[in-house]
């Protein structure tokens, strides 16, 4: 039956809107409820990260990387620090590697908890958001115990970490993991298998694999479309090759592969994998001094390097060019949410207004990282 072509209405899902995950403006051409075209406008949170990093020394860039993706700051630091150590050929002691993996995976769970909770909010369920934030607070307590900060840590330094682990960190961390594992089952019962939730997310905003690769989408969004790509497995950095964990892919149980439900489901399974990694890391956590290889004065050799790491939102790449002085010549951050948002215009066409909000939620973007 022919679709009735009414006249178009331009709608601004404006910079100030309850569900744009930050300051983002979507210019939407709608015909009734059906959306015919979307143009995202970004740049409202642009704080010139790259210009700043050309005026501060190498260790002073780390607080700025924290503030790009403020939900997964540990992984931002991790990316920057791994790239710098590869540039300067620093070999960090074992204990630092294990601490970094534990912190990065804890931060991945915290970031996924926020992503899934806010996704439930976008689809209309209030309670899962509060359950997930209650558990996220427990992780933030652990971070506060080690480095004093709850959201922006400046914890990982080039060549080491800023603080050693507190007294009985193993007991506390294992305590959290045992507390948290049954909670995932509770989220699944409450939200994932809920028929209304499935109705709202299955078959919505389908991102086919080739379009995903063409749009440079990465991380859980790409794995939701069934592409087996995880930087921790395919370009292993730090000591990720010592742990065995699977990579969850979207199989399209309740709809086609690559729909919003798959992206949601991949994030839920990734939390289980992260718990496995942390358990293995804590089991064989060596002792040692963490401040040993922190260089007093960072003067990397002349040259450039591009290195990718797996942040909860995808491939977080750092392109660092140094000219031998203690001030970086150029630091470029390739942000995964930037490419995920660029694909929104493609996959949200033809859906209804409330689906656009659901698809935006399933892409899990953070505007701090997009605008840098």
């Amino acid at each position, binding site marked *: 039956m022919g679709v009735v072509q009414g006249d178009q209405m331009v709608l601004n899902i404006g910079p100030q809107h309850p569900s744009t995950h930050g300051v983002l403006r979507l210019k939407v051409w709608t015909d009734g409820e059906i959306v015919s075209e979307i143009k995202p406008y970004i740049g409202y949170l642009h704080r010139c990260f790259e210009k700043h990093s050309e005026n501060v020394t190498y260790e002073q860039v780390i607080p700025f990387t924290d*503030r790009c993706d403020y939900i997964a700051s540990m992984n931002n630091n991790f990316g920057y620090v791994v790239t710098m150590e590869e540039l300067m050929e620093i070999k960090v002691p074992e204990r630092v590697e294990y601490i970094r993996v534990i912190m990065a995976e804890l931060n991945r769970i915290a970031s996924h908890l926020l992503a899934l909770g806010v996704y439930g909010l976008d689809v209309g369920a209030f309670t899962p958001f509060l359950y997930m934030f209650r558990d996220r607070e427990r992780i933030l307590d652990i971070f506060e*115990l080690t*480095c004093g900060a709850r959201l922006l840590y400046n914890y990982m330094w080039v060549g080491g970490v800023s603080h050693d682990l507190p007294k009985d960190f193993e007991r506390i961390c294992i305590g959290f993991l045992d*507390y948290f594992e049954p909670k995932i089952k509770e989220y699944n019962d409450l939200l994932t298998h809920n028929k*209304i939730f499935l109705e709202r997310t299955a078959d919505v905003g389908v991102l086919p694999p080739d379009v995903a690769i063409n749009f440079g989408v990465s991380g859980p969004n790409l794995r939701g479309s069934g592409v087996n790509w995880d930087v921790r497995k395919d370009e292993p950095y730090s000591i990720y090759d010592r742990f065995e964990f699977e990579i969850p892919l979207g199989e399209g149980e309740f709809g086609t592969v690559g729909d919003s439900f798959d992206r949601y489901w991949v994030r839920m399974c990734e939390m289980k994998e992260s718990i496995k990694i942390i358990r293995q890391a804590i089991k064989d956590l060596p002792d040692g001094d963490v401040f040993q290889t922190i260089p007093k004065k960072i003067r990397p050799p002349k040259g450039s390097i591009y290195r990718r790491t797996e942040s909860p939102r995808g491939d977080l790449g750092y392109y660092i060019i140094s000219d031998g002085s203690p001030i970086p010549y150029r630091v470029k951050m390739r942000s995964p949410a930037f490419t995920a948002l660029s694909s929104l215009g493609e996959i949200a066409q033809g859906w209804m207004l409330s689906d656009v909000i659901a698809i935006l939620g399933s892409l899990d973007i953070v505007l701090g990282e997009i605008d840098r």
Partner: protein
Amino acid sequence: MKKYFANIWGTITTLKTGMGITWRHMMNIKKDNVTLQYPEERWPRPERDIGFEHEDYNVIRSRLHVDIDDCIGCLKCERACPVDCIKIDTIKAPTRGEDIPNIGHTGVTENGTNKALVVSRFTIDMSECCYCNLCVYPCPEECIYMVGGPNSPKHPIDYEFSEFDRKDLIYEFSKPLTSEQKSELMNPKPDAEA
């Protein structure tokens, strides 16, 4: 037709499990209530259910504090600050390691180094500080640190330092010097020279 009824039955069962969970949470609210009654209960609740004590904290990033008597004016923290919110002015002390009683300047720091400079101005603009803790590490005398944590015996944790006026957020740590004391320090009188 069969899928129609299976669909309805699936809806009913999944909605029922969902309602069961919220009912259980409502029933045992006494056990897993997480609200912190703010004015009465303060953060951090030591026996938070993970069970670590307040002294276990490595560091608490709440507010910068400077023991001005130990500060030798080496400007390392000013250089380490990524947002340049620390500003220090120093004046050359007439003699190294000598106390100057009238302006309360102590010549020797806690761990014994003699001070060659009088710190006339040491301001930290807490409204610009990004709490990254980078200024604490280079200090040779460990006189600048964030309140709480291992320093908590000296300074209990406090995070309520909001002010009504932005200018009050600029903390002045150096001892107040009147202008003529400053000028007198700057150019010592001829007889002191001879």
